[in-house]
């Protein structure tokens, strides 16, 4: 894969119904939409279906979605729903809902109420980890497997699941290698590029994403990032705002690490394991969410951030969350307190997803933060 091909593939992250998905559909392929990293994409891939993580690239206006979700709901979800209602997502052959958060639940419920997909499956993810919640989640995965199998008339064998798990393992190690490139002393890839790669990866099949990463790693190992003022880590709620990350970097704060679900939280801490594929997946996903929607898990989330920040030698951390996202909004208070206790400077930003009106304010706050940390 040459530089041009890499660029082309990366460009897929700028378009919802991108050329890759169009080609997939033209070949008769099916596509299933999902909204949360708690969805084991391995099961979808093992069925020969393309898993597509719902995004709101381009941050559209939300006039259709606002007739359903209220202004008290997160704008990321409203923007995703907008694209669901205006037909942009009509290429999806079905949806998988997860009880990620109250906003996301409402988004899926409205989407299904209006568009009525033939295939709509609700994957119920427990909110804490115990043996009995793991058992329940394993059963949930079995139900999801059966539902996909039944509706799309495909056999999802254990062998196919193991193969999909192996592909994800390979992806994981390549993503870690990619992340190492930005964590190193002289980073060779920017934070906005990484978000863009992850967004691309969430709408192409793992085999092609693996190939993209192999080529990207070769190219990026030799790359160079111009001068920057400080090394930053980005934490917070779900976002595909490549432009926002770019805006922070334009102020001189290079994002060298993250704890985002369009970032490291999607793959980093998945444990190794063996056994039946569904048990393995249940364990990997339930114990790996590192999201404030999980309980009795705060210290693990905090440790993950501290370890990542130390490894990437960051000068400060930006925690951002979408307005009305109380899961992250409340968690941010504890995180800030506990990180500052460890002398890690923190900037907390509550923002409106995709809002251009917020750009000036964000720019000023990032600039002030960079000054504070001596960048």
């Amino acid at each position, binding site marked *: 894969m040459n530089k041009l091909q890499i660029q082309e593939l990366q460009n897929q992250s700028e378009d919802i119904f991108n050329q890759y998905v169009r080609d997939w559909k033209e070949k008769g392929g099916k596509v299933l939409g999902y909204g949360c990293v708690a969805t084991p994409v391995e099961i979808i891939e093992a069925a020969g279906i393309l898993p597509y993580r719902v995004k709101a690239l381009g941050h559209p206006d939300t006039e259709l979605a606002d*007739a*359903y*979700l*209220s202004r*008290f*709901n*997160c704008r990321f*979800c409203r923007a995703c729903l907008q694209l669901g209602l205006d037909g942009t997502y009509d290429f999806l052959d079905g949806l998988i809902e997860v*009880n990620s*958060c*109250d*906003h996301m*639940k*409402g*988004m899926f*419920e*409205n989407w299904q*109420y209006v568009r009525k997909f033939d295939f709509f499956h*609700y994957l*119920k993810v*427990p*909110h*804490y980890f*115990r043996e*009995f*919640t793991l058992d*329940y989640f394993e*059963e949930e995965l079995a139900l999801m497997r059966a539902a996909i199998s039944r509706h799309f008339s495909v056999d999802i064998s254990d062998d196919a699941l193991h193969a999909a798990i192996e592909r994800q393992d390979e992806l994981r190690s390549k993503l870690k290698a990619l992340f190492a490139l930005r964590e190193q002393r002289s980073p060779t890839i920017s934070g906005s590029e990484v978000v863009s790669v992850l967004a691309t990866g969430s709408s192409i099949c793992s085999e092609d994403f693996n190939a993209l990463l192999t080529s990207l790693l070769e190219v990026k190992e030799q790359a160079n990032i111009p001068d920057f003022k400080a090394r930053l880590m980005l934490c917070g709620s779900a976002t595909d705002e490549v432009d926002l990350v770019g805006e922070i970097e334009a102020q001189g704060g290079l994002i060298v690490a993250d704890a985002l679900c369009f970032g490291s939280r999607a793959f980093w801490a998945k444990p190794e394991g063996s056994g039946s594929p569904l048990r393995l997946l249940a364990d990997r996903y339930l114990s790996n969410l590192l999201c*404030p*929607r999980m*309980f*009795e898990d*705060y210290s693990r989330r905090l440790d993950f951030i501290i370890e990542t920040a130390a490894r990437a030698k960051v000068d400060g951390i930006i925690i951002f969350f979408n*307005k*009305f996202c*109380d*899961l992250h*909004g*409340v*968690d*941010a*208070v*504890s995180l*800030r*307190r506990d990180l500052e206790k460890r002398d890690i400077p923190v900037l*907390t930003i*509550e923002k409106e997803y995709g809002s251009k009106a917020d750009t000036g304010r964000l720019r000023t706050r990032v600039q002030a933060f960079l000054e504070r940390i001596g960048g």
Partner: protein
Amino acid sequence: MKAMEGTEYTGMFNRVSAILKVLKHLPERVSEEDIEGLEHLVTGSLAATAKSALAPRTRDSTLAIFDSLIAWLEGFERARRDGKKIIMTSLTIPVELFYCFKNAYPVTNELITTLGGLLLEGKSDRYWDFAMGAGLPDTMCSSSGVSIGANIMHVDFQPAAVASGYPGDCDTNAKQQEFLAQYLGVPHLMVEKPVDDSARGREQYLKSTHDFIEKLEDLLGEKMDEELMREVAENHNKGAELYWELSDMLRLSPCPVPNVAALYVVAVGLTMWGTKEGVQSIQRLVDASKRNLEENDYQEKVRSLWCWTGFYYDLWGFFTWMEERGITYLGDALSILFPNYIDTSSRDTIIEGFANFAWDYPMTRQMGSPSMSATWTDDIIHSAREREADCVFFAGHHSCKHAWSIFSIVRKEVMKKTRVPVFALEGDTWLRKSMALDAIKRQIEEFIDNVVVKYKAKA
């Protein structure tokens, strides 16, 4: 984060307790002269609250609730003296569970918030501001946010644990309870409601309840006492019968149950359900409603069902004001309970009975369902038909992201299936500052005058 400055007398719980203790000295039969005297004694919004709480149609119910709240408070003080562990609990955990231990006493977040809003001059605004001062987002829920603000002052009491049943049915409250536990450095005990109405979901909920009880037993160093469990379950069953009796009276027109009874039912449910004081309070609410039925002097014009919360910080501004205009409050989602009969034959049947009751708790039942809109719609339609509502109000608290996220579907479906007009209001259930009650009253009047009256005429 530095603890907020405060003295013993600035704590919200302490201030509320002091007022309740004064109310203990009210005579058994309060006369008009007594009320007049009280109005001169207290000022501002408190005078309006007192006048409203002791209005003739409401008076007996209010005195019943005062008595039981005072008994609950005295129980709290005894518990502290005896070294029992205070558990800061919340709306979605059956309060009965704690009364099954010799060494525990529950204080419910939402009750403290509500009492602060009703009884304190200046309402509970100051405590909300403390929470904001700690950096918590202003989009979170004031139901426990106010109480959290009061708790982080560290002047009222230190709970031994924070208990929550919110995971699965309300993100913001679930996170707030976890934050409080972290802040206070005490264990956070949870029950999770799976978003699964199948038998498997119920079984999972029961497992989660057992898990919670085990953790609580470890914390308290004692097993749930079977004798106490039976006593609590029997009280629950008596309370359930009385609740259904009260519920039946809500179907009558003119409605003999005073508007404010809905709030009082919530108070009992949150605080003393399963205790003999709880049973007595509901009994007295039933008796008071029966007396109203005999007197039959209420001029009812419109029957309103509140499908989510009401506004709980101004009795006069909300409940009594409506009653004076003949607008009946048929209850809200928080006061519409589904108390079951508990089989007291064994420890397991009793625990299952508590879990079944909690499964149908307000919000847990609707927002913890796999289809929030379908379950909520069914509940509204059922209540609207059973209580013969002329209209439905949604008091949309900005923090109820789940309810707001599907309200559009709910409104459409309820109106399509019942033809009953539905109206959405915005405002904070526990705080006066997000929208003035006068503005809310205007909207209620306009909706009733322009829509409901016409709907009734057509019907």
